[in-house]
């Protein structure tokens, strides 16, 4: 079993998002970067699966050198090695095309992604990659396992859950509830220093989209408060404004 875990590096969840240069860029001043929370789940799950079968977990990231500290953290959690495609991605499609090259070269049995990156929230990479490689994919998984050469999943569907069995190779994306994310221990942190982190140059691709402008949500008007002794007024207001 060889598992490839796609990992994006994103602003910490407490980050206040604002934009600079006439709203054309994210203001990165003071931002702390973390492993995308969903990718922490898929990494942990990949380790659980490979620990049973004694095989390897490789991390892949498309990003610039400043991602390396976060990639080392993933190695400290337990991945065997990492590959970074040295590029500042323009969109999910760019990321997927780069990872497809890595995936083709590596003959992985399983490729895991997060349900989405919490920065650009595309939720695109799993599906794109699956189609570029023309293999099955299962999105928003709350359970994953490999038994007798087949992959077993539970996934969210609208209003419920479903269990699925697929052939390998397969791509799956992690949803919350998949597992408890592992945190690195001292031994892991020491080991991570010498684990291989290979940097490869991107392949040149024709663009798909251009992020031209950003906008912050319109600030809310001050809240209108109702008396706690007369909460019925709130319901009246909601009725008046046809909200209910």
């Amino acid at each position, binding site marked *: 079993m060889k598992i490839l875990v796609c990992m994006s590096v994103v602003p910490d969840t407490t980050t206040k998002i604002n934009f600079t240069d006439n709203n054309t860029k994210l203001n990165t001043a003071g931002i702390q970067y973390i492993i995308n929370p969903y990718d922490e789940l898929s990494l942990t799950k990949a380790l659980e699966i490979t620990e049973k079968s004694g095989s390897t977990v490789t991390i892949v990231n498309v990003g610039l050198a400043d991602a390396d500290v976060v990639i080392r953290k993933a190695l400290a959690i337990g991945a065997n090695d990492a590959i970074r495609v040295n590029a500042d991605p323009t969109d999910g499609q760019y990321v997927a095309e780069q990872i497809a090259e890595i995936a083709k070269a590596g003959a992985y049995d399983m490729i895991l992604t997060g349900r989405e990156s919490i920065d650009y929230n595309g939720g695109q990479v799993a599906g794109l990659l699956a189609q570029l490689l023309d293999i099955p994919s299962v*999105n928003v998984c709350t359970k994953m396992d490999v038994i007798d050469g087949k992959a077993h999943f539970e996934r969210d*569907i609208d209003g419920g859950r479903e269990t699925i*069995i697929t052939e390998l190779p397969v791509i799956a994306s992690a949803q919350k509830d998949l597992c408890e994310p592992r945190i690195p221990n001292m031994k892991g942190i020491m080991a991570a220093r010498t684990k291989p982190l290979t940097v490869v140059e991107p392949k040149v691709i024709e663009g*798909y*989209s251009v992020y031209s402008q950003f*906008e912050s949500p319109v600030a809310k008007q001050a809240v209108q408060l109702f008396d706690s002794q007369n909460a019925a007024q*709130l319901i009246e207001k*909601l009725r008046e404004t046809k909200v209910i």
Partner: protein
Amino acid sequence: MIGIYAENSEGIFKKAVLEAASYAKSLGDNVTAICISKPNEGEADKLAKYGINELVILEGISSFDAQNYAKVFFTVANQKRLQTIIIANTYEGKSLAPRISVLLNASLATNVVDFPNTTNGFTVKRAVFSGKGFAYVNLTRANKVIAITPNSIELKENNTAISVSTINAENNTKTTITGTSKTVGKIPLTEAEIVVSAGRGMKGPENWGMIEELALELGAATACSKPVSDMHWRPHSEHVGQTGITIKPNLYIAIGISGAIQHLAGVSSSKVIVAINKDPEAPFFKAADYGIVGDAFEILPQLLTAIKSGKN
């Protein structure tokens, strides 16, 4: 030519599909809907009402498999020379949109929240940073796949005549669905127009009766904050926020939730927000339209009485 994926939810085209139809119709006159498996009687008329001229039904596929669905969808899209495809960003839509974009060699945009601007190229507005921002993105390829966030696009009626045809599709899947469990009778959180949500302020799972009753009275879905699902007071599927589900209902009622930035990220695009919290300094009041400062255990019974007395 423009196409939509008409997701078939147990024979029915839900509102999100009609939103996709409205979006597609705003781009041009001829819109083809492709649906996989036969919809109920009369459902095609719903599409006609929102401007769809043609419905192609693909029969012979029994269960959802993204690879197989994308392939058969593409066969029709290619034949009909569809260049722009609109898909509702549901669980199914999210699995399909990227695959279809690869097959069509198209630019892909997901989480799109508004009609496009086509004065200079083709620019869509999408939600980013879990609702903490929006991005305007130019889709530069000739072909485009656009996945729209449910409850973002205004429905526009546009009555037309619709022609319906049925094609047999090849069922070629590498996945086997071995079990399905649906919470029957409950409104799925992602589709709900009203959401009643509660946090650690409710003290314990035994106190959720009032929350569920309020949801029932309002025809709402229930949601919760992350610690509440982490402590197993409520199922994980109810957890909303940056690391949970992102929702955009017409009304979000937050009870005993502080309003941490990660929570707000998943709910702040709701059209109207109500916060109920005993702490006047709770950050939720900065994100809310309406609020009540007070004890949820005193306020909830009043709300229930007021709602019930207003009915009939």
